[in-house]
């Protein structure tokens, strides 16, 4: 049975420093994934993830037991990646295409999903990777936290420091941007739907 995070944290605070390796093993993929979506560079992402774990270790004493550890850790990782991004020249947030008809957009999403189902796995993964790369760093982080980490809008607001309505807007814009990109890439497949 997996030991709860809080018990490992107690062990680390009690002097069992090597127990922190278990925390790293548990969350490294998710933390790295968030960092790589923001930074889009494996080396930078690894350094940001490493910084995030070190900062988490240093601040472990301040972790409030009544809060969710992954959310707390993602907040540190998000800030770590964003500050690293600011150190280098950051790419501006992508402009979402204008779309007035929401129903039309939702219908298009179903078509895109259906078209993706007819593409080979490897190619499909590459298309999705490129679609994610169309997003600005902040939008990519929000998509990652919402769809991959299953965080709520309120939790993402806590992690990023953005207001809930701002998170919702950025999420919607991200979907528009990705949907628009996928429509263009899958133009040929969409013809047959």
């Amino acid at each position, binding site marked *: 049975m997996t030991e709860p995070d809080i018990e490992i944290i107690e062990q680390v*605070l*009690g*002097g069992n*420093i*090597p127990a*922190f*390796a278990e925390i*790293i*093993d548990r969350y*490294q*993929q998710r933390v*790295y*994934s968030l960092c*790589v*979506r923001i930074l889009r560079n*494996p080396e930078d*992402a*690894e350094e940001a*993830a*490493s910084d995030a*774990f*070190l900062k988490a*270790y*240093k601040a*472990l*004493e301040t972790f409030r037991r009544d809060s969710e550890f992954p959310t707390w850790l993602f907040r540190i990782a998000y800030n770590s990646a964003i500050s690293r991004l600011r150190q280098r020249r950051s790419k501006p947030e992508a402009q979402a295409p204008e779309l007035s008809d929401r129903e039309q957009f*939702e219908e298009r*999403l*179903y078509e*895109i*999903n259906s078209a*993706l189902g007819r593409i080979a*796995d490897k190619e*499909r*993964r*590459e298309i*999705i*990777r490129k679609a*994610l790369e169309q997003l600005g760093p902040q939008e990519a982080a929000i*998509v990652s936290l*919402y*769809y*991959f980490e299953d965080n709520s809008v309120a939790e993402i607001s806590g992690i990023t420091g953005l207001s809930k309505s701002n998170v*919702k807007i950025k999420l919607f814009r991200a*979907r528009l941007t*990705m949907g628009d990109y*996928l429509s263009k890439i899958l133009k040929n497949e969409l013809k047959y739907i």
Partner: protein
Amino acid sequence: MSNNKDIFRDILRNSPEDTPAPDFTDKVMQRVISESISKSVLRKPSISRFPIYISILLIVAAVFFPAFVGKSDIPKTASVLDYDIPLSPVSDALATVSQFWSSLASLDSLYLIIALGVLALLAIDLLLKRSFNI
């Protein structure tokens, strides 16, 4: 948003999985251990400074209070075989100290105890912070 979320989750299910280098944990742990050597983040001892201060105050009071209330009477000579042998310069030094305490004794001893206690507290406070990070 929920429908949209579901369909997008379906679309993104095929996104490539990003994983860090295999030695990622080892590298981070190296940083963590060197950090822990340079600065402990472990839970601080449950000992509080307050009881230590009270103890110091009591010790200071116990040691110095008799000196303040009684007159110092340090002889300037030692009697050996009925001959008085002067003990200078040691006796001079003791006499000076004796005079100092006598002059202090004329003050209210309580104030002196408090003053000495505060000085001792400041010194101990510095020692605890520097040595034990309490």
